[in-house]
């Protein structure tokens, strides 16, 4: 018994060394912060909008029964994020809880100037997760974006985070970027970060109202749009559509997408959907200068053929393969050019050079972004059409006209 007692005392003395997150908090005393929106402040540096979830209105259980709105947005300002958060307690009855925060929205204004001043707050807080998605509000304030209601997903945050992932998988013009990715992009000398842009379309003032959810066609809705290019932690510009896809393709994040090619003089006659694609980036040196080789291996199927074409003929397929390769190459090259124009190495070519020749990199890294703008980039694409769907000859071929 004496030994037990000693052991008990010993274990309890060990307790204080494990006091990381000990304090008890009831679920009903917490305000789950789902999203944080950061705008430039009028009087102070930042205006921070806190999107809080109203649990009773989200869950469709017996006791819930959601009559009201699923979220509530509060706003507070401060010179630092912490100051704003502490000031928010004057307006919010519950303790702000960040462990379930899934989205950080930053306004273009903040992104162009003071973005670096908020990153540490997100990185340091033990509750806040660095796997939180980060987006930039394009053409609107972060507050508006955070306040918008969505109709398919009750929680606007899950709409955005799910949307980014699904469009990355199906189209490849946006990709999921979280706080961690962003920070690693900032600190690396051979790479610059990118962030997704988000637009609030339609009648912006309608976005925060319940009526917005009452119609099948929302008056205002959120849409992923473009990739923000950064340089030295500041927003430098945007790349969009095919260029954005090219950039993501180089980053090897494209899973599936669609490529349209011309056939028999008809534009966009054939549509090919990629099913597997892989990008390899390598570095060669020519006259002491790095040359980047991008090699893409792509497989896909014909998802549309809007012209008379004999898809049973291997020669035709081979020809199609070439056309697709050409089109992919064009998009990749354009993406590289767009980035070079902005002088921002979002592809991480610098890191490749660093790995290939660390000594040379030491010389190059000082003005790498200038070097990047003049970098020679070779693109090589291998594309194969593996299937034609459940029809070989399109109806165009048998049409008697």
């Amino acid at each position, binding site marked *: 018994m004496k030994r037990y007692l000693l052991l008990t005392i010993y274990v309890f003395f060990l307790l204080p060394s494990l006091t990381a997150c000990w304090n008890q908090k009831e679920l009903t005393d917490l305000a789950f912060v789902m999203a944080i929106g950061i705008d430039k402040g009028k009087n102070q540096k930042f205006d921070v909008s806190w999107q809080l979830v109203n649990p009773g209105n*989200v869950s469709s259980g*017996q006791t819930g029964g959601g009559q009201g709105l699923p979220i509530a947005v509060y706003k507070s300002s401060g010179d630092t994020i912490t100051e704003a958060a502490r000031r928010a307690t004057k307006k919010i009855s519950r303790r702000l809880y960040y*462990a379930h925060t899934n989205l950080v929205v930053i306004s273009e204004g903040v992104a162009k100037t003071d973005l670096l001043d908020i990153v540490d707050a997100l990185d340091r807080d033990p509750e806040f997760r660095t796997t939180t998605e980060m987006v930039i509000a394009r053409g609107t304030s972060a507050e508006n974006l955070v306040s918008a209601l969505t109709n398919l997903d009750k*929680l606007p945050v899950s709409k955005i985070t799910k949307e980014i992932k699904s469009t990355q998988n199906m189209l490849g013009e946006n990709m999921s970027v979280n706080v961690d990715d962003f920070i690693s992009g900032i600190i690396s000398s051979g790479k610059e970060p990118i962030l997704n842009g988000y637009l609030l379309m339609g009648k912006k003032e309608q976005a925060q109202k319940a009526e917005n959810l009452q119609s099948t066609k929302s008056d205002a809705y959120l849409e992923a749009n473009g990739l923000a290019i950064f340089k030295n932690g500041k927003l430098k510009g945007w790349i969009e559509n095919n260029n954005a896809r090219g950039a993501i393709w180089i980053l090897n994040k494209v899973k599936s997408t669609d490529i349209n090619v011309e056939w028999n003089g008809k534009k966009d006659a054939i549509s090919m959907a990629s099913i597997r694609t892989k990008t390899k980036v390598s570095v060669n040196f020519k006259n002491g200068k790095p040359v980047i080789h991008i090699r893409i291996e792509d497989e896909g199927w014909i998802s549309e053929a809007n012209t008379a074409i004999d898809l049973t003929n291997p020669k035709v397929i081979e020809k199609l393969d070439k056309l697709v390769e050409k089109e992919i190459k064009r998009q990749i090259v354009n993406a590289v050019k767009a980035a070079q124009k902005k002088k921002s190495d979002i592809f991480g070519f610098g890191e490749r050079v660093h790995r290939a020749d660390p000594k040379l990199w030491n010389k190059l890294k000082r003005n790498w972004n200038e070097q990047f703008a003049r970098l020679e980039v070779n693109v090589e694409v291998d594309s194969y059409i593996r299937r034609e769907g459940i029809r070989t000859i399109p109806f165009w071929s048998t049409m008697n006209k």
Partner: protein
Amino acid sequence: MSILSNILKKKQKKRQNDNFRQMQDPGKPDELPIHRDYKDNIARIKEEYGNSTDISYREFKFCGSRGIAVYIDGLASNTLISDFFMETVTEEVREMVTDSFQQMIDFTAGLGNVESITNWNEVHDAILVGNTVFFLDGFQKALSVETKGWEKRAISEPSTQLSIQGPKDSFTETLRTNTAQIRRRIKSPNLWIESMKLGTVTQTDIAIMYIKGIANEKIIGEVKERLNRINIDGVQASGFLEQLFEDQTWTPFPTTHHSERPDVITSHLLEGRIALVVDGTPFVVTVPALFIQFFQAPDDYYARFDISTSIRLLRILAFFIALIGPAAYIAGTTFHQEMIPTTMAIAIAAQRENVPFPAFFEALIMEVTFEILREAGLRLPRAVGQAVSIVGALVIGQAAVQAGFVSPVMVIVVSITAIANFSTPVFTMAIAARLIRFIMMGLATILGFYGIMLGIMFMTIHLCSLRSFGVPYMMPIAPFNIRNQQDVFIRFPIWAMKNRPMFISKGNVVRTGENQKPGPPKQDEDQSSQGDS
């Protein structure tokens, strides 16, 4: 000081009382010889038993001398005795002039085991177990004839430890029936049965069973020594025995195993354990008992090994759910909200929104309510029990949730915990988990998951410190023994369970022969065996 001395005095007084009681003990040897006059004997019996009405006397005349048969109505078989008088104590026998005592022995031999007894101690022993004692006038000795024949319950299906594929018989309240059931399964002269009586007043019969050559002699000695040390007025059931001779009282975990299934006891005996059959209890106790044994259900051995392994793992998982289910809920919702997936956290938060109690009290209320329901359901007459369970289910499941006192998640947690608790095959282990659950809930309230880990740590330390008759309780997990892993988490195929558990069966540990793996005969082996014959 005065209080202390008072207490001491009281203790002394108590001790004196104890001594007094022992002097009065009816179990004390009473070596008084039997009277020559049979009427004196009757008078003595009547006096000693206080004219108890269940004692029957039958006077008769035998070979010229008068005599009397004494037996307890209900314990001795009435028909047997009546038939005896009808057939043997006839007119002509009454008039025969010979050594009537010897004649009596010869005649009564037809009834059952006959013994000549000389003192009162033996008289009492004989009468109380259901024998008939014949006193003959003019003899200073009597005859004890075995006429046991009381009403007993027939062998029925087991009611608490059920199995799907196993045998359907179970033990009864009669010691002999129980030992016979085991003997029928182990047809070996090495199955030894030793008997003793326990309980100074009740004189309960106890049979110690073991297989000579398999059971560890040291443990047999230890069991006997501990049984001999017991000095108590009565051992009403095997549960008394378990509590009187277990290794550690201060533990919720059972260190003795019991079963109402003869097949379970048989397999325990084959592993070298010692079984104790207590008269009047349909549960046979086996020792030593190990922790993992309480998760081995009889069906584990009757089903294929892969299936029984998965089911056993499931059972162990269920034990942990029963242990920390509500505690994990409390810890998760009050300390570690970040660990719950977002949508689930919001769903729980929504349900808890209108609940007036903190998570701990909510859980405590529900758990206690459930325990009350379970206890009530157990005690109430069968017909009423049904009604109570319906009302309970409605009250807990529906009304409490609708009234907003409890969140639906809590109902789910309590239900899962309760169901998981029922999957432990042996009740004594299940009830240990029930008790520890409340401690875990308390720890979770104060310290969250850290508290739960602390609780599990303490529990593990405690479990490792336990011993059952000298065998470490957590054997073969801690101390780890690679040879004994065949029946722990993974139940090996029967042919691969080569060894008996260590320490329990010392020396004789090999169970199977060589090459027991079944399969179609190999071609060349077949030919060689044919050549041999």
